[in-house]
């Protein structure tokens, strides 16, 4: 078949973008991978190969291991809370309420704001009061003052404690019996300070989940629900057996998007807590940036970046392949 002039034009037009992505996404990822195997740990590049030493170095640092734990904990709480709140709000808003548009906009507007702004405001709201800064007696402020909480015990993002499953709790024995004893390690618990970060992140992102669910709900034919009602289904059964299964694809999309955001979370932590008490709110993204650009250990920073990329890829690549297949089938 002869190749038409328009065909050539179309290829020429898209070539610069393809080239840019090829170089700046794939090329630079490749280059980061290379840097992660060289010595480079001063300002001046040093391309002496060191094999996997940089990876051994970061995985040998308690801070990086805590960062991985923080990411897992953050992701679990962030996704669960955002999905629950998003689904709840979508269902409430979808019930032909008065002022629907107003409520919808109220729930979505945080999406238009920078994580930096969110972090600065929530840091101010969640500041526990003076006890956290070593003076006594404690004067509650912010959220503690609003709800009459004691700043000595409600320390929000300044709390250094890690909640873990202690030997006294019933779960401890069960987990050890089924071979999951490692979960009870004090290193694997939930850093209390991290939950403040989750609170701010959920504030920002749950409206987005609501929008997704709302679109999903409105795509469900009313006749389907009506038919079930005629058959005598209760509203709960309709939700459980018709609406919920139809929302599963939306849930998956939302999980992927929230998941890859939480694996990369950086701005919010920077603005709100930094690394937090005892690295309780530290994340791999913070580790990477400080290791590379503050401490000039570029080799180790690159290794941390590649670990982050691997974490994101595990979540995103199957999703992209799956959506691609869906498209081919339809």
């Amino acid at each position: 078949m002869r190749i038409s002039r328009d065909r050539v034009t179309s290829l020429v037009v898209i070539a610069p973008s393809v080239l840019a992505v090829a170089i700046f996404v794939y090329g630079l990822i490749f280059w980061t991978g290379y840097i992660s195997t060289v010595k480079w740990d001063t300002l001046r590049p040093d391309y002496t190969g060191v094999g996997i030493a940089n990876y051994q170095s970061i995985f040998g640092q308690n801070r990086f291991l805590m960062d991985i734990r923080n990411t897992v904990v953050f992701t679990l709480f962030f996704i669960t809370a955002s999905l629950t709140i998003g689904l709840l709000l979508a269902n409430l808003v979808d019930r032909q309420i008065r002022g629907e548009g107003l409520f919808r906009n109220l729930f979505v507007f945080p999406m238009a704001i920078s994580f930096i702004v969110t972090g600065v405001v929530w840091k101010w709201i969640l500041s526990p009061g003076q006890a956290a800064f070593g003076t006594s007696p404690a004067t509650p402020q912010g959220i503690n003052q609003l709800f009459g909480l004691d700043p000595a015990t409600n320390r929000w993002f300044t709390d250094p404690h890690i909640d873990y499953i202690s030997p006294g709790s019933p779960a401890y024995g069960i987990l050890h019996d089924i071979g999951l004893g490692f979960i009870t390690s004090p290193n694997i618990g939930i850093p209390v300070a991290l939950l403040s970060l989750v609170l701010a992140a959920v504030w920002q992102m749950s409206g987005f989940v609501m929008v997704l669910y709302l679109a999903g709900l409105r795509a469900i034919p009313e006749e389907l629900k009506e038919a079930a009602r005629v058959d005598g289904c209760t509203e709960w059964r309709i939700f459980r057996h018709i609406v919920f299964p139809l929302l599963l694809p939306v849930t998956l999309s939302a999980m992927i998007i929230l998941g890859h955001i939480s694996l990369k979370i950086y701005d919010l932590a920077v603005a709100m807590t930094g690394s937090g008490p005892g690295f309780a709110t530290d994340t791999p993204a913070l580790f990477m940036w400080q290791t590379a650009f503050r401490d000039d250990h570029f080799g180790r920073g690159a290794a941390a970046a590649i670990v982050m990329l691997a974490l994101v890829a595990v979540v995103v690549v199957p999703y992209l392949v799956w959506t691609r297949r869906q498209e081919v089938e339809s």
Partner: protein
Amino acid sequence: MSRKTPPEPPDAAVQPTAEPPVRGGALADVLAARKIDPLDIVVVVDEEEEEKPRTRVRSDKGSRGAHSRGPRARITRFFLYSILFVFALWYLTPVYVLLVTSLKPTNQVFLNQMWVPVWPPSLDGFSAAWTALAPNFLNSLKLAIPAAIISSMLGSINGYVLAKWKFRGADTLFTLILFGMFIPYQAILIPLVQVMSNVGLYGSIQGLILVHVIYGIPITTLIFRNYYAAIPTELLEAAKVDGAGFFRIYRSILLPLSATGFVVVLIWQFNSVWNDFLFAATLTTQPNWPMTVALNNLAGSFSVAWNVQMAGALLAAMPTLLVFIILGRYFVRGLLAGSLKG
């Protein structure tokens, strides 16, 4: 419940009706099965909003007739609105704190008086914040506006090719491009600094514009590709028969239909560039800092009063918030389009 012994519907009767769309997978397919364009959904939603009076009448009848009646319905409604109001309060709390604190005179910002507004309001905070941040505010404008415009033009032409001039492997290429919008930018940051230094763009706003345009290619291409896919190919075929070429078709058929697509993409890019912190903090230096970096720096210093910090935060949020308030529905369409594949 007032209804007597509802005949239990056998699960089998419910399931089959529910099944076919599920098998489709992504939301896009559910929508496709119903012949709904994902971008249209919110339009439908918005149209409902505009004819609210009628909708409400219908719903009142509906709820009294079909579902339940009387006091029970009223109690349900009461709970419904209560939950909504609680959530609305939660979403508004930071806004309240921002407004109240930023309007306090500097000598009346007390840590334990955070929830109490001060009357009369004072512009101390705003004038101090503006003095500190005005140059950075301008930087952000000089950064976000050109980046959004260039990105949308690139996205439009790319979307046109990938939707209407598909070549062998075009879809695979598209998936490969899409991956670029999910990567953690940390994975390219170190070499990116090297590249920008080597071409002499490190530290400059122009360099940052270039970076945002390049890493904006995946999302802008995605939105336009899906947008153009909805335009019937027959239209293009007819134009081809009439002798129109690649650019002629783009100019006379696609572009006139693209206004909405451009608004969605412009808003999306303006938002993400304005709100970006990672690239800005890594690739620019002080006089060229955009708003987010300058605000973080201001808020990080202990000597800056809280009213100034809050005023600064409000200034940083203002442009994107204004866009959201004026063009909210397009913002939401961008959110949806950005999360739907195919």
